């Protein structure tokens, strides 16, 4: 407030030299012509700048700000995209690992099974071979016994023939021999 009063006083003083002052007079003499010139020049400058300069300068700034905002947005989007991609990759890797693990497990299981099968088959075959061998042996032994028996019969016949050539070459004798042979063969076949 005091400032305002100062101002009023000063203005009252300032008003006086306004007319009294000729050029080259006091420091506070006002030259109205120069004041008007100043206003005219300033307003021209202001008008020209408002028309040609400021819209372009501020427009460039705004354009750049928009550009930067757009870049920031794009960067944000890229970042999100990258994050999504990374997550996807991680998921894929996990999935692949799980799948590989499963496959390996499966393969191991299959191998195990195959081995067991192979072993089984081998065992069975061996058993079969054993069985067959045993059967062969039995049959060979049968055959051998048969042969022995036949040979024995033939030998006994031959010997007996030799012994009883003349006497036994009849129908009765032959029947007797056959009967005795059948008696001999029955227990042998049963054995």
């Amino acid at each position, binding site marked *: 407030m005091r400032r305002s009063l100062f101002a009023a006083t*000063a203005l009252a*003083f300032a008003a*006086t030299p306004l007319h009294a002052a000729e050029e080259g007079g006091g*420091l*506070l003499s006002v030259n109205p012509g120069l004041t008007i010139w100043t206003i005219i020049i300033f307003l021209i400058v202001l008008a020209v700048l408002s028309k040609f300069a400021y819209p372009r300068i501020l427009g460039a700034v705004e354009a750049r700000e928009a550009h930067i905002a757009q870049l920031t947005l794009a960067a944000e989007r890229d970042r999100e995209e990258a994050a999504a991609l990374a997550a996807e990759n991680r998921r894929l890797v996990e999935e692949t690992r799980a799948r590989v693990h499963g496959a390996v497990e499966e393969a191991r299981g299959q191998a195990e099974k195959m081995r067991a099968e192979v072993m089984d088959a081998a065992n069975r075959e061996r058993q079969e071979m054993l069985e067959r061998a045993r059967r062969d042996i039995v049959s060979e032994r049968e055959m051998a016994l048969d042969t022995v028996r036949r040979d024995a019969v033939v030998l006994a016949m031959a010997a007996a023939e030799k012994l009883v050539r003349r006497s036994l070459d009849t129908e009765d004798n032959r029947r007797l021999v056959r009967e005795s042979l059948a008696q001999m063969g029955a227990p042998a076949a049963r054995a």
Partner: protein
Amino acid sequence: MLLQEVANGLTNGLLGAGIGAGLAVIGAGIGIGMIGRGATEGMARQPEIAGTIQTGALILAAFVEGAALFAIVVTFLIQGKVG
């Protein structure tokens, strides 16, 4: 004799104008000094708002300066009237 008195009057008037200017400067000097002290203390305490304080200090200093300038203008006008 009359001329002598007129001359004396002129010198006294100039003297008055000079003293007035000096007094105005003392007041403004104290005022701006206190603003400066307050501003620097404020900035030392809160450096993070140093910019705001500086702007405020500049404006306040301009106000104090303005008040002193009025006084000086008045002395200058007195001097102009005397001379």
